[in-house]
């Protein structure tokens, strides 16, 4: 069998470092992305159209353009604007967070709007303020419905982070590309990367199933 485990073993230490990078970037990005997404999601539900419009545009732009291009624009356009020069780690966080925010916003909005309006009316008629109705009646029910969609978004984000190899962020794909270059071999680096991503996302989905049952 023509499959060289020795070169995988040789690259295992850096691949593990890359895995840690991937996990770190994904975690921070999903956190920042969902916080930002919460704001954008509420923004999109604003009653006045001119208030709603920018959030609407944000979601459409980030969902409607490839992440590949977004990463390049953030890395070579946005980050140098603030930071003075390119900075891969920062670009990685920012690009993934901004992208994830657009999807999270829709998850929040859909979750909240999926709750029957009667629930809100009932809460208001009990004498609750609109804020209280949202906090105690609508959100707890909505969050339960959001968990599976969020899990999905998290898994997609972990896999999408492989695009960061484009700007030389040292994640899993980056190191498997390096392995490919040294030996000019395809299967060893790509299958190893696939296996690592699979292990990551599979454990993640198990964790999310657990959370789903607990909520």
């Amino acid at each position, binding site marked *: *069998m*023509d*499959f060289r485990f020795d070169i995988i073993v040789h690259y295992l*230490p*850096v691949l593990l*470092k890359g895995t840690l990078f991937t996990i770190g970037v994904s975690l921070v990005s999903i956190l920042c992305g969902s916080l930002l997404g919460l704001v954008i999601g509420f923004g999109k539900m604003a009653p006045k159209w001119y208030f709603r419009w920018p959030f609407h545009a944000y979601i459409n732009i980030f969902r409607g353009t490839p992440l590949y291009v977004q990463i390049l624009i953030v*890395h*070579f356009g946005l980050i*140098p604007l603030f930071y*003075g*020069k*390119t*900075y*891969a780690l920062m670009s990685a966080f920012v690009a993934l967070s901004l992208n994830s925010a657009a999807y999270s916003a829709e998850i929040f909005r859909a979750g909240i709007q999926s709750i029957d309006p009667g629930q809100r009316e009932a809460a208001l008629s009990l004498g609750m303020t609109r804020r209280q109705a949202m906090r105690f009646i609508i959100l707890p029910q909505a969050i339960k419905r959001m968990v599976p969609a969020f899990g999905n978004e998290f898994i997609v984000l972990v896999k999408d982070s492989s695009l960061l*190899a*484009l*700007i*030389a962020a*040292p994640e899993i794909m*980056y190191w498997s*590309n*390096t392995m*490919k*270059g*040294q*030996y*000019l*071999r*395809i*299967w060893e680096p790509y*299958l190893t990367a696939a*296996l690592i991503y*699979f292990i990551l996302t*599979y454990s993640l989905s198990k964790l999310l199933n657990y959370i789903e049952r607990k909520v």
Partner: protein
Amino acid sequence: MGIRKTWAMSGMVALLVLAIAGCGSGNNAEGGSSDGKSLKIATDASYAPMEYMDTDTIKGFDIDFIKAVMEEAGVDYTVTNTGWDTMLTSVKQGTEYQAGVSSVSITDERKETYDYSIPYFESTNMIMVKEGSEIKSSLDLKGKKVAVQAATTADELMSGIMGVDNGNLKRFDSNAVALMELNGGGADAVVADIAIVNEYIKNNPKEKLTGIIDKENFGSEYYGILYPKGSEWKEKLDPAIKKVIENGKYAEIYKEWFGEEPDTAALMNAK
């Protein structure tokens, strides 16, 4: 729960085995199963001026060179732009494409997987910095941020100097992005093939860039045609390559692309 987990894991393992078997079976047809008359060559035409796409035609030094060799050998051939990864896998299998010509440097590690023709091009890596940089030689690159194209000998060279997992060594998908990183300030230098660097400096005079040649630390390297292991084409084409270099046709093509005479003596002596 436990059972489901086992199922999923064995599914993944099965997938792996399938894939390995897949690339294994390709190897059985080693050496190219073609009728021996026509040769299908793969290339990654994104490496101007060596090989690049001019809208829908492939051009470049390598392309003109392979044309001369094939005329010399009297062999029909086609060159297809397959991209790098497809070139690597399909040439390794040898069924669809029986050779790859894409400025592939000859290294010992790669020889474990492929056969190479005799060297047909001498190259060296070159450092590109912004004008006024304090970097004067490869030794100054230590501790600096260096951008390279992943999977090139520049990558290998700098991995050797700086360490493979050095965070200051940044590997990009293409030289174009590596050069953008230099312009963006994320890198202090780019290391790439001399032909690429010269072409870039020539095409971007406004960006105030200089190239540094460091013969002492960046030795010569040689490009070869890539064949599957045990390919019959190596024996057939090596004499034609030699002939093209000896009869002056090579120098003619070289001058056309690079405006100077090649050092064919060094090329013939290279192993």
